[in-house]
């Protein structure tokens, strides 16, 4: 994206970064819904059995990522059915370039100087996807943000970031745009998916763990950065990387803090995914309680399903649904964190009381409103009926979630490029973030186990018994 214009040559048409992210996000979600509607199936369009992932969208052919591979990266260019994905992968990278160019134009800049950097960032994101799709990496849940950061760190800390590359879209902008588009996947109706036991397990424990861990980090461990405490608390208590990205944007965490929180989350997700199912079997825990416990504690969604399914189908279904409820809380939590940050944490109390609200509003990250608006609109559409639910599911699983993934991946490459190893060192050396994560996760494990036992194992046991 073009550098900010200054001086007398400032163009007449120039939008703020958050406004650009929202404009592009709104356009993409609306366009994706319209294209899916135009290509909707006429044969039994309300059948979930026929379309388990929603209506197939024509846009799915325009975006994909490298597939899993075992021995040679070339295997990543062919999907499970033996069909080449080269075109869709190239087009996926093309979407990132296109969005970078569109943002530059909306921001009042000239697109040509941005092009080489945007193409390079998209290419590096593609490289990070190749690294993350190696089967061992993939099946142990070491997700693409880690490798995108690693690729950026390697380049940024060796040959640096030349001026032509620095004109590329900033990581913050790409992640903001990805988050606005992500709103289409955050459906409020999913919050009620498991009824009262699900609500009690996810709605009571998650906020309690989040607030307690944050408070412990700030007031007991005295970690100087409040935003680091918040990002670690959110990724540990809500749903891992996606929650970390959303809350980091809401509380304006530094890129080093987000990188650290993601690293911690991924390492502990692997450990918990491998260790918890055997422990549940060994302790002879009820399968449903075990599934709810997994769903409420393991950070990453995919790892929850992997651990739950390895226990059994019932446990897998309960684990996935509890995690899906937590997934859907991201919107509320990101909004609450943004309000708390703008209104309390960053508040300058020296001014007149009447101006405090206006001052908080001036600091509020506006793109969060775009994220929330899309989430509410798509949730409303989803609740209209079975056909609309399949319409939304097809649009999100076939297009917007893939595009959001590309934007996040490219955003993390940019963040890696801008991060100095030396800036990460103090965070790692103190060890306090690790202690905060472990302490918070221990509380999460205990409270979720108690609540899952209370709800699924006792209060509603008779109701949920098959």
């Amino acid at each position, binding site marked *: 994206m073009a550098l*900010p214009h200054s001086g007398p040559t400032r163009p007449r048409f120039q939008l703020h970064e958050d406004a650009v992210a929202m404009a592009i996000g709104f356009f993409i979600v609306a366009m994706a819904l319209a294209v899916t509607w135009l290509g909707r199936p006429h044969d039994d369009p309300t059948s979930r059995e026929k379309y388990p992932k929603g209506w197939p969208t024509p846009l799915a052919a325009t975006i994909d990522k490298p597939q899993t591979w075992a021995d040679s990266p070339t295997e990543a260019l062919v999907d499970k059915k033996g069909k080449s994905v080269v075109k869709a992968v190239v087009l996926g990278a093309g979407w990132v370039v296109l969005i970078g160019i569109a943002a530059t134009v909306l921001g009042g800049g000239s697109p040509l100087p941005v092009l080489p950097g945007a193409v390079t960032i998209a290419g590096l994101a593609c490289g990070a996807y190749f690294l*993350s799709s190696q089967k061992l990496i993939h099946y142990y849940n070491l997700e693409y943000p880690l490798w995108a950061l690693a690729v950026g760190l390697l380049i940024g800390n060796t040959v*640096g970031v030349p001026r032509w590359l620095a004109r590329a879209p900033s990581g913050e902008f790409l992640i903001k745009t990805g988050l606005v588009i992500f709103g289409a996947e955050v459906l409020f109706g999913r919050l009620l998916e*498991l009824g009262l*036991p699900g609500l009690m397990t996810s709605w009571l424990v998650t906020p309690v763990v989040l607030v307690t861990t944050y408070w412990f980090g700030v007031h007991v461990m005295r970690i100087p950065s409040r935003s680091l405490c918040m990002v670690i608390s959110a990724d540990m208590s809500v749903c891992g990387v996606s929650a970390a990205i959303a809350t980091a944007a809401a509380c304006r965490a530094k890129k080093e803090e987000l990188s650290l929180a993601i690293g911690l989350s991924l390492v502990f997700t692997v450990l918990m995914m*491998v260790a918890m199912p055997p422990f549940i079997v060994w302790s002879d825990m009820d399968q449903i309680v075990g599934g709810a416990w997994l769903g409420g504690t393991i950070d990453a*969604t*995919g790892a929850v399903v992997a651990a739950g399914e390895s226990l059994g189908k019932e446990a897998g279904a309960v684990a*996935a649904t509890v995690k899906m409820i937590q997934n859907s809380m991201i919107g509320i939590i990101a909004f609450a964190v943004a309000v708390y940050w703008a209104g309390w944490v960053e508040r300058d109390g020296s001014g007149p009381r009447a101006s405090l609200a206006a001052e908080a509003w001036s600091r509020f990250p506006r793109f969060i409103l775009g994220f929330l608006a899309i989430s509410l609109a798509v949730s409303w559409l989803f609740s209209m009926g079975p056909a609309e639910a399949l319409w939304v599911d097809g649009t999100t699983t076939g297009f917007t979630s893939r595009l959001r993934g590309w934007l996040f991946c490219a955003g993390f490459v940019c963040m890696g490029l801008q991060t100095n190893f030396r800036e990460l060192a103090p965070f790692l050396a103190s060890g306090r973030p690790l202690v905060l994560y472990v302490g918070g996760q221990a509380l999460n494990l205990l409270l979720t186990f108690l609540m899952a036992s209370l709800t699924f194992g006792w209060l509603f046991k008779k109701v949920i018994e098959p």
Partner: protein
Amino acid sequence: MTAMSPRTTTGAGPAAAWLVAGLAAIGFVWCGLLPRLLRYGPVKRHVDLMEQLDVNPAAMYYTELDRLPLRPEWITRRLTLWPTPPQPQR
């Protein structure tokens, strides 16, 4: 509108050498070490199980799962938002 800021590192020669060394390490780990580790007993069992169950553990969000989580039929049938206690039998 923000953009990245240019960064320079000292000494073009050593910097490029570090980059080449990093890329070589990635090539060695990803194309040599990881494929071998995939054949190691416990790792192979885990990967085979995940493939057999058609699970995508790397999904960041539920929309990225190969199968969307669906409630088992017994939950849909028997679990309501506010379950009522069973009525005493006469």
